[in-house]
């Protein structure tokens, strides 16, 4: 039980799932068995127990956070408002899904589980009978839940007509694009690029006229080797998402007719020295270093990453300014960003819960309009102020007491949450501006929702997806860097199909055909 175990790591843990899940599902195993029996018996029996006895302590499993979830101010506030004591446990940051699988498989008696909206995981649990059907519970105990969460959201989560989770809504569509140094644009006397050709011209000017002033050290566009498909550019070639609709069928990027064009464009940029020539070995942190030290003219980055970069860049180059490039138009006139689709987080009640009714009552209490507001943004005058209808955070108390508030939600007040949520983006004016630029100033038609955002669990896709993604990413990087040529594309596509794409595509399109209706 010493060092040897480390090598096996979580693959083995994941395998453990299979074994213990088998134990749990046939009900013979003690922990899982008794727990699910308890849950099954409860709708009839525990109604009286609940009303007569005092409120039990609920157990909630939530995502990782760097503060103790039990002492974080929101926990106390919720305890006062709901009257329920809750003991919070967190999943690890790394390999959270494996640990969750382990806990679910071994029948840990959590009353609520709050996790990323991983539809595959969710539908898998639901189909294995690991989750409690919420519909009757909400009918009986959930007036606030019904008010807060739209029917449409609930319908999107139904599996075989039953609802097993409550969604936290997504609050924005677009995450990242190319961030470009606007002061460099001014220096080379060019406008913000709107097409891929203009972008290339701008990068060329960055290279030739050296507006950064570091000579050869400067790179026009920095990128990293983990990210072969640059947002905005890949959208200009009609492939904003990993699978895109081509004539009514979903097709992965590698098999997309535009794949060659995208790779050709990128390889050309690389050949002309417009992309960081070290991009293959760059990590995300390296690209941020280059941009924030003033040595890169452009970077692909999420708007939520901007505060740290902005602070560093202002220190290094006080006159630096930047803005996002919008959705670039490609040679075929296409343009688009990958749009978030589906949900942000899901909260469910495992079958193993000992207090499913109290759990739903607790959730209902947290979704009561005023309680939810206080959960999300705190108290007016203490944590936030309202300016022109926008919620502005009061710092630093908002950071200390509400930053992690979303981890305490089990569903969201869908009419109001987007407004509350923007208080977080307002924490940093530069970040808000970037967010606003991508999400509010870009026309809706370029925010192309990820068609797989609401896809259910598909065994082959779940099994092969990661491996396929890695294959394509590695291959694309090689092509861009000129280490491989497009002449081998057919052979590689065949290999890719055989490595699981064919099986995945069938599942995906079978589902897509029914979902598109």
């Amino acid at each position, binding site marked *: 039980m*010493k060092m040897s175990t480390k090598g*096996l790591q979580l693959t083995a843990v994941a395998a453990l799932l299979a074994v213990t899940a088998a134990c749990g599902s046939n009900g013979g195993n003690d922990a899982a068995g008794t727990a699910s029996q308890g849950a099954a018996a409860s709708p009839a029996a525990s109604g009286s127990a609940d009303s007569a006895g005092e409120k039990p302590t609920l157990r909630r499993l939530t995502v990782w956070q760097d*503060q103790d979830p039990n002492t974080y101010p929101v926990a106390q506030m919720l305890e006062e408002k709901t009257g329920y004591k809750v003991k919070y446990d967190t999943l690890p940051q*790394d390999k959270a899904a494996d640990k969750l699988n382990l806990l679910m498989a*071994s029948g840990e008696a959590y009353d609520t589980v709050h996790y990323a909206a991983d539809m595959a995981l969710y539908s898998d649990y639901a189909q294995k009978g690991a989750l409690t059907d919420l519909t009757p519970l909400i009918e009986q105990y959930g007036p606030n839940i019904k008010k807060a969460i739209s029917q449409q959201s609930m319908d999107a989560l139904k599996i075989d007509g039953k609802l097993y989770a409550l969604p936290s809504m997504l609050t924005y569509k677009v995450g*990242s694009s190319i961030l470009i140094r606007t002061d460099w644009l001014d220096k080379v006397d060019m406008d913000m690029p709107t097409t891929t050709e203009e972008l290339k011209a701008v990068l060329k000017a960055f290279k030739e006229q050296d507006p950064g002033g570091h000579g050869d050290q400067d790179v026009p566009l920095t990128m990293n080797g983990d990210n072969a498909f640059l947002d905005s550019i890949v959208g200009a070639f009609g492939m904003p998402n990993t699978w895109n609709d081509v004539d009514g069928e979903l097709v992965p990027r590698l098999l997309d007719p535009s794949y060659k064009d995208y790779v050709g464009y990128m390889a050309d940029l690389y050949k002309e020295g417009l992309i960081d020539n070290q991009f293959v070995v760059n990590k995300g942190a390296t690209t941020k270093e280059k941009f924030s030290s003033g040595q890169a003219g452009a970077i692909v980055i*999420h708007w939520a*990453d901007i505060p740290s970069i902005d602070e560093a860049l202002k220190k290094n180059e006080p006159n630096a300014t930047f803005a996002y490039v919008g959705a670039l138009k490609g040679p075929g006139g296409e343009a688009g960003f990958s749009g978030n689709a589906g949900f942000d987080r899901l909260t469910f009640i495992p079958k193993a819960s000992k207090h499913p009714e109290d759990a739903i009552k607790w959730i209902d209490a947290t979704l009561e309009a005023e309680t939810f507001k206080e959960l999300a943004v705190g108290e007016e005058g203490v944590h936030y102020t309202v300016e022109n209808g926008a919620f502005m955070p009061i710092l630093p108390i908002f950071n200390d007491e509400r*930053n992690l508030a979303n981890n305490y939600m089990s569903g969201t007040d869908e009419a109001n949450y987007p407004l509350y949520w923007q208080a977080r983006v307002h924490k940093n004016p530069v970040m808000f501006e970037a967010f606003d630029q991508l999400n509010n100033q870009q026309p809706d038609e370029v925010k192309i929702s990820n068609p797989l955002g609401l896809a259910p669990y598909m065994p082959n896709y779940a099994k092969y997806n990661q491996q396929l993604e890695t294959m394509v990413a590695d291959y694309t990087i090689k092509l861009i860097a000129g280490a491989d040529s497009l002449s081998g594309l057919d052979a590689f596509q065949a290999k890719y199909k055989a490595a699981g794409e064919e099986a995945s595509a069938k599942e995906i399109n079978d589902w897509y055909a029914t979902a598109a209706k």
Partner: protein
Amino acid sequence: MRSRTLGDRTLDAFTYLVLIAMGLITLLPFANVVSKSVSEEWAIVSGKVGLYPIGFQLDTLRYVVTNSQFLHSLWISALVTVIGTLASLVVTAMTAYPLSKRELPGMGVIIVLFIFTMMFNGGIIPNYLLVRELNLIDHLGALVLPALVSVFNMLVIKSYFESLPASLEESAKLEGARNFTILFRIVLPLSGPVLATIGLFYAVYYWNDYFNPMIYINSTSLKPLQLYLQDIVMNADTSSLNRSAEELMNVPAEGVRAATVIASTIPILLVYPFLQKYFIKGVLIGSVKG
């Protein structure tokens, strides 16, 4: 003694220089993390921090060591390390002692059984099921009990015991001492060096163990330091483009990660100097008069 020529000495000097340089090279990554932990965030983000800090400040370290979860995890780790090491030492020594006696009946079989567990074990799944059946899930016992005896360490102690002069025990027996008295009053006090070494092995193991806690521990209040550390550090490795805005906005700053690494490495580093003397001092000196 052969007199040393100039050539010899030059060679020595050269050897020392090379070895010292190589030793220093191993310190470079450490120096980098130390520098990051006391540098300002903007300098870290823009990649300016190398071997020495830029914009020296101690706020990050202070933030880390006053974080209640860090302190709590530190306490759990210290507890597990101290209790685990003591328990392991006692049990391992008590296992090794009888096995160091050649007259023990069936010793060959017992040793083979022990060594068998070194080569083969049930693996993670049976272990998990066992720990679950013992009701040790989410219990600190799950961190100590499975690792209580390392056969390798036991064999090291055993061979050390065998090297102790038999005459010592014989004379103790003549004075009327029983086996337990001999073990605890004579053999163990004479085994300072090996116990210190093995104790250090165990301490480092318990301190560094993150795998068992990752599997067996669920409560935030029972998470040891390594698990906390892993959570903090792992943040950095996931590609930022795949993550939600919420997570990105709450990612611990690079400086905080470096400071957490430093703050959690120092306690176990402090143990080494205290054990050092046992490695140097020969305890046997004077115990057997010629």
